[in-house]
């Protein structure tokens, strides 16, 4: 996670406010809070959390539970985007992982056996990592544009998932498998713990070691970082594998949540939501700078938006238009130029360091001029 820009000005209420609004997480969090508040008139007890069926229950719990897979996929995507790449294959990887794990479990005589479930998960995740290795290989070794390289598995992967499930929805009845995406532990959804672990490990690896800096260096200028001695190809392959692993865990969660593998629909379009979450979280699509914390908030924003659409009674035909309108508003609010024009200099003063939602051609990013910013 990036640290807040240090302010040297004397601590006055104004400067504190300014420091707050300049924090890279300020706008994503503000949007999240706003979206949550929108729900209150429609769902009076939106923020209340009670016990039901031996676990905590409430809208906030649902948002985190259903948002978990998206958070995972988006965290993986963040690192890929930080290297100036993009991974469109995550949705297909979600489908493959779920399909493999569920079809393995459904072949077991005792579906509840822990060893079988662990083996199934291992198989699924192995397949996911192999997909990531393939993506990384194409991008880093073969020099194929990331958007094209990952498109291959995006299209073919769903077909593979359907082959595994034979075009059917595989329903399983396995208590241990149900835990990871639909179960509860210590009264909280178990998926929260999985997400927390992945986020902590990611932040730890990227910010407590030099790894994050290396990733940003590769994203800033792959050739320059190679010349200073960074093995940029290896870093790239690694981030694609990590991204696929995250997608694989998300795939286990999604299939576990409904105790079924649906090769056709599992993780459909999740790659787009994940990219959106990354952008809302303030990671530049040009690469070279990333914020895992921002991505988590971004994913929660998207999940909250989805829940909001369900609860405030937007007619189904206008769902997507509504979603698009909110996303446009969010992106505009994050743009310093837009804020400066509308609200005056006070909000827009962060200048170029503000994470703008840059709809840039990421494919060109690796060749672009040095633009590294360690924030």
């Amino acid at each position, binding site marked *: 996670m990036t640290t807040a820009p240090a302010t040297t000005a004397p601590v006055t209420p104004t400067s504190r406010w300014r420091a707050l609004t300049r924090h890279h997480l300020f706008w994503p969090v503000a949007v999240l809070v706003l979206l949550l508040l929108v729900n209150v008139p429609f769902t009076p007890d939106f923020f209340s959390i009670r016990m039901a069926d031996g676990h905590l229950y409430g809208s906030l719990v*649902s948002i985190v539970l259903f948002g978990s897979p998206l958070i995972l996929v988006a965290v993986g995507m963040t690192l890929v985007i930080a290297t100036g790449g993009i991974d469109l294959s995550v949705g297909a990887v979600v489908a493959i992982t779920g399909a493999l794990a569920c079809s393995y479990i459904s072949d077991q005589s005792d579906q509840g056996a822990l060893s079988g479930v662990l083996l199934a998960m291992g198989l699924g995740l192995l397949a996911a990592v192999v997909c990531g*290795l393939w993506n990384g290989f194409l991008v880093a070794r073969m020099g194929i544009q990331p958007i094209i390289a990952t498109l291959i598995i995006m299209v073919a992967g769903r077909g593979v998932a359907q082959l595994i499930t034979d075009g059917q929805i595989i329903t399983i009845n396995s208590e241990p498998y149900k835990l990871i995406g639909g179960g509860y532990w210590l009264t909280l959804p178990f998926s929260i713990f999985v997400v927390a672990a992945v986020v902590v490990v990611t932040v730890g690896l990227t910010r407590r070691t030099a790894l994050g800096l290396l990733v940003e260096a590769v994203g800033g200028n792959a050739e320059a970082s190679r010349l200073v001695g960074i093995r940029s190809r290896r870093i790239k392959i690694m981030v694609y594998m990590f991204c696929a692993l995250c997608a694989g865990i998300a795939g286990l969660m999604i299939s576990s949540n409904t105790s*079924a593998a649906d090769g056709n629909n599992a993780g459909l379009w999740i790659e787009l939501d994940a990219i959106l979450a990354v952008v809302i979280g303030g990671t530049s699509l040009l690469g070279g700078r990333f914020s895992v914390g921002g991505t988590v908030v971004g994913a929660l924003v998207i999940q909250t938006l*989805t829940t909001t659409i*369900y609860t405030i009674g937007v007619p189904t035909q206008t769902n997507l238009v509504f979603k698009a309108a909110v996303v446009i508003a969010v992106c505009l609010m994050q743009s310093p130029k837009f804020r400066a024009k509308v609200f005056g200099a006070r909000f827009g003063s962060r200048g170029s360091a503000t994470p703008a939602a840059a709809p840039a051609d990421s494919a060109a990013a690796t060749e672009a001029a040095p633009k590294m910013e360690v924030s």
Partner: protein
Amino acid sequence: MLSRRNFLTAAVGVAAAGGLAACAKEDDSSTGSSSTGGAKTITLGFSQVGSESGWRSANTTSVKDAAKEAGYNLKFSDAQQKQENQISAIRNYIAQKVDVIAFSPVVVTGWDAVLKEAKAAKIPVVLTDRSVETSDDSLYVTLVGSDFTDEGRRAAKILEKVLTKAGHKGAVKIAQLEGTTGAAPAIERAKGFKEIMDAEHKADWKIVVSQTGDFTRAGGKQVMAAFLQSNPDVNVLFAHNDDMAIGAIQAIEAAGKKPGTDILIVSIDGVKDGFVAMSEGKINAIVECNPLLGPQLMDVVKKVKDGETVERWIKTEESDFMQDQAKAALPSRKY
């Protein structure tokens, strides 16, 4: 080390490509074309939408089995949800001079050109499952398929029975899980249900929330979880398919309520998992949407070939199931 890694990735790539090729194949093997004595065997060209759901695979199996049963020479192809594949399959059938062409159209429009070619070649066309919009009605002979609007009506009718059986008193607050926005089954099932509701239960029934669950379990679960928060007083769920109902059941259970008791559930389709849920008492009634239209199709094909006139729309034979019939019907569910 490096070469081994490269080899591994290459192997995966080859495997994936092989898989793709495998699903694109056209199954041209004639199923049971036992030429019976003097009478010429009927050759039927059938183009299926794809294999996107359990319902669809049951549909495919039914057509193949029925063709074998009837002793027809079936040329089957899978369009993988793409209209261009389907059009080229139909052109192939025209070139092969089959006796009758049947297909489940992927989309509603864009069929005029290829259907005119079939007409020029004097090959009758039968639609199955879904309809098309054409400029010229003579381009196809008949449609063998379900009446989605009627399924909606039947769902409303069976809900009456469910309410009586449960001894329900007071307002009926309905949550509706719609199918994919814009899809014919979603639009027409909602329409049929509303028709009966407005005509006969205007005073006490009300759809309080309605949202699309995209015909998927995950969609049904997520939307229902949100409904239960915003409208905790919902006491009836009408789902446009079983999969969404199954997802919703999980959300209802997570909220600490009992599906089938606290919230009465009516859904459409009748897939096996739906029947399993119904036999567990979690779904109250299912309106069947029957994919097993193979025998009816073969019947129609024979009539069309013999030049008999057939109805414009031959509706599939379907029934409704209440909970007490679930256990008995479960073993015979094929899909």
